[in-house]
């Protein structure tokens, strides 16, 4: 799983069977310093509560479809959680590099 920022929504009226009612969001995968990495993707929202601007984590490949109510849907990326915080574990020497609850810029 990886972190991502939700940056938009996708509306499609004509969809493959099984995708009815599935919310589709545009996400930008992030590195662990929350800087954009890689290309933007369309992911299904398996938690039904994600929205633009939110920090989420998503799962790819076959596991994405398993996150949906019907596991036999044509979905290859799914948002499975909304991030409250990325917390350093106590004693972690790298914890301060994780950033706080806000989006950090220019780190590293």
């Amino acid at each position, binding site marked *: *799983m990886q972190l991502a920022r939700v940056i938009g929504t996708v509306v499609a009226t004509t969809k493959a069977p099984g995708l009815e009612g599935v919310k589709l969001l545009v996400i930008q995968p992030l590195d662990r310093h929350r800087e954009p990495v890689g290309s933007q993707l369309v992911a299904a929202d398996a938690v039904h509560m994600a929205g633009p601007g939110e920090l989420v984590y998503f799962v790819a490949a076959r596991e994405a479809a398993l996150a949906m109510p019907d596991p036999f849907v044509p979905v290859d990326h799914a948002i499975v959680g909304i991030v409250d915080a*990325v917390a350093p*574990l106590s004693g972690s020497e790298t914890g301060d*590099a994780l950033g706080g609850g806000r989006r950090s810029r220019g780190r590293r």
Partner: protein
Amino acid sequence: MKLARVVGTVVSTINAPIFDDRTLLLCDLLDPAGRPAGGYLIAVDTVGAGAGEMVLILDEGNSARQVLAAPGAPIRTIVVGIVDEVTGDIAADPVGRTAADVAVSSAAPARPRAARPSRRPRTRRGSA
């Protein structure tokens, strides 16, 4: 499987139900010499790994679901072990450290080896 260093936890309250009561660890991927290999993964903990520890990551869905005994779970990546040391001819190390140096320096970065306290018991969580 992959080697990685635990750098933090991902906390979330709104998530797929399978992630309730599970610890998600943010892990930086490492090469066998213990250096960052680039990239990271968010993995479900199964062994009680702690901060700064080098861990073994399983990044394959069917195996992960079997370990968790959760057949339909949307989980692909789990932590399956805590690495004590890596030995062998790690030829790719450009610094020229020996395998023994690498094992000592990479396995216990946070505290001295001798003073390392015993870890808490490894109870596997969430699977019955």
